C-alpha cells in the first residue's frame, strides 16, 4: 500500500477495493478459448489486421495496430536533444502505458525491455548524437492477457517498427516479430534470418528451439511482406 498520498491526481477514496470478478461460466469461456490453428494461420491474421501510421500529430512518428481484440498505439518522440553532458549515441527509452488495467509491473517491464533490446541493435544510434528517442507504447485493448500476451508483444514490436519508420529514424532493416502459440515464444527477426530478440515462456521452449525458429521464421517472412506492402502503399 502506498504510504504517500498522491495529491496531484484524483484517485478517489483510499479504502475503496478493486472489483473482484467471479470466474466466467464454462459456456462463456469456450467462446474465449484459443484456437491454435487460428493462431498459426499468419496469412489470415494479416488480412484481419488494421494498421494506420501518423495518427498522433504531435509525435514524430506514430502507429496504430489492431488485431483480434488487441489494440496498440505507439508514438515515437525524437530524435530530440537531451540535456546534460555530450553523448555520442542516441539513448533509447521505452515506456508502456496500460489503459486496460491488466498489466502488472513485471509484464510492463518485460515488454519495455524486449522492445528496447530489439531496437537498440537495429536503430543507427551513432547517427543521432546528443539526442534521445522515446518510444511510448499505449495498450488500449488486450485479447487475452494470460495466454496470448506474447502475441500482443509481437504486435507491439511490429507497430513500433512502423512508428520508428514514420518518425524517419534510420534502421538497418524492418524488425518483424512472430509468435508461436504452441511454445509461447516470440522471436524478432531482421534480414529474414537474423534474430534480434527472443522471449520464450514455456518450459520446453528451449528443447524445441530449432523447431520454433523454423516455424516463426516462415511466419516472419509473411509479416515482412505485409509490412513492406503497407509501407509502399502508404508512401505513395
Amino acid at each position: 500500500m502506498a504510504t504517500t498520498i498522491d495529491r496531484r491526481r484524483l484517485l478517489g477514496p483510499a479504502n475503496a477495493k478493486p472489483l473482484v470478478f467471479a470466474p466466467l461460466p464454462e459456456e462463456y469461456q469456450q467462446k474465449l478459448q484459443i484456437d491454435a490453428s487460428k493462431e498459426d494461420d499468419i496469412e489470415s491474421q494479416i488480412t484481419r489486421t488494421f494498421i494506420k501510421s501518423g495518427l498522433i500529430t504531435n509525435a514524430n512518428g506514430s502507429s496504430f495496430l489492431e488485431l483480434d481484440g488487441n489494440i496498440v498505439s505507439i508514438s515515437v518522440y525524437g530524435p530530440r536533444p537531451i540535456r546534460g553532458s555530450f553523448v555520442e549515441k542516441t539513448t533509447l527509452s521505452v515506456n508502456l502505458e496500460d489503459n486496460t488495467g491488466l498489466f502488472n509491473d513485471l509484464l510492463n517491464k518485460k515488454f519495455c525491455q524486449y522492445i528496447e533490446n530489439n531496437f537498440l541493435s537495429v536503430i543507427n544510434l551513432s547517427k543521432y548524437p546528443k539526442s534521445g528517442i522515446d518510444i511510448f507504447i499505449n495498450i488500449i485493448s488486450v485479447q487475452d492477457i494470460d495466454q496470448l500476451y506474447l502475441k500482443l508483444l509481437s504486435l507491439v514490436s511490429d507497430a513500433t517498427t512502423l512508428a520508428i519508420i514514420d518518425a524517419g529514424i534510420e534502421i538497418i532493416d524492418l524488425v518483424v516479430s512472430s509468435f508461436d502459440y504452441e511454445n509461447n515464444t516470440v522471436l524478432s527477426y531482421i534480414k529474414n534470418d537474423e534474430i534480434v530478440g527472443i522471449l520464450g515462456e514455456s518450459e520446453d521452449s528451449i528443447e524445441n528451439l530449432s523447431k520454433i525458429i523454423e516455424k516463426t521464421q516462415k511466419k516472419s517472412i509473411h509479416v515482412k511482406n505485409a509490412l513492406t506492402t503497407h509501407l509502399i502503399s502508404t508512401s505513395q
Partner: protein
Amino acid sequence: MSEEFEFKPMSFPPAVVARISPELSLQRHLAIGIRPNLRKFEEFRNIEFNDGGLSRYGSDDQIKNTSVLGSSVLKSGNTTVITTITAGIIEEDLPAHEINDDAAAVNAVFAKDKTDDSNNDIPKSQLDEYESIYPVVEVERGRVGAPTDEEMILSQKLYETFLHSKILSKDSLKVKVGLRSIDSQGKVDIYYKDDDDDSEDFGLGPKRSWKFVLYAKVKVFSRSGPLFDLVWASVLSALQNTKLPRAHIDENAADIKIPVKMRGNHGTIREQYQIICDAISRDPLKLNNEAIGISSNFGIIDIDEESIQTLQNEDSMEIDSKSILLTDIEGEEEEISSKKTISIVSDRDSKNLKSLTIIGNVSNDQLRKSFELTKFRFKHFAK
C-alpha cells in the same frame, strides 16, 4: 560618411509564421475572414464517438475478461480521446446504531460521554444526494513524470462540474448485494434482491451497505487546443454505456461475529466481507439524462486596426465589429491569442447552465451570442 543598409524582407511559410508569431498570423487570417484552421468563425468541429468495444460487456454474447465497465473513443479533428470507466467498492459509513444491535451497550462501555446520535438531523444540502467520478486525465506529450498543470486542472474541473451537474445520484451507485449459497448437493445459487421485491433481507439487510466508486481514465492524443469540451463529451458518452456488475457475498461469510476480549471488555468484530462481482449479470448505470449536456468554448479576439489596413481592398471582408467571437478554439494561434474566453456547460435542452467560465472583459452581446450558439449546437448535436 554614410553606409548603405538594405533591409531584405524575410519570408516564411505560413506554418512557421504561426509558430514564431502566432498573434500576427491569426490577425492576418481574421482580417480576410477565415480562421487559420480554415473553419468559419462560428463553426464547431465535428465530434464523432463510439464505445470502442473496450468494455467488459462489449456485446451480449461475449464477455471480456477485463474490469473496464464502460468506454468511449472520441475523435474530433486530429484529437482522439479514449475514456475507460472502472470501479471500486467501498463500504459506506453508517451510524453505529444501524450497524450494531448492541450499539447502545457497546457505547455504554467504550464511549460513555457520547450521547445517542441517532436523532441528529443535520439538514442535508441537495448536493449530498449526488456523486461524482474520479477522473485522471492524461495528455500524451512524450514525457513521463508528474501530471502537468493542464492535466490536474482538467481532472479537477471534470470532477467538480460533474458533481454540480447532478448527473449521478447516490442511489445509482449502491451495490445491491446478493447472497451466494451452496446447497447440500453442491449446487450454487445466487440470490439477488430486486427493486420491487419486498421480501426480507438476507440477514445483512440495512446493517451494512456498499457503494461503487467510479474512476475515469481519460487519455488524450494529438492535443490541438483547449480540451475540456472533448474530455467532457468523452466521459459522458463512456458513462452512458457503463454497466455495473451485480455483486454477491458468500452465505457462510454473511453476518459472522467474532467475539473478542480486550482489557476485560467483551465485544465483537464483524467479518470483513469479500464482495465478488458476478461474471455476467449487470445493470446499466442510471444517469440523470436531463442533466447531460454539452460543453462549448469560445474565444474573443480583438481585431488589430493595423492588420485591416494592410489588406488590399479586394481581400477585405466586412467585419462589422472590432472583436470577433470564435467558437471551439483550435490550434496554437487561436489558443495563445484568445485572452478572453467563455466556457459553457449546459444541460440537455440547454435550459439550465451547469457551468460558466468567463475570462477577460466579455461584453453582454458576445455572451448572448455564445449562448445562442450553444443552443443551436445542441439542436444539431442531439440528432
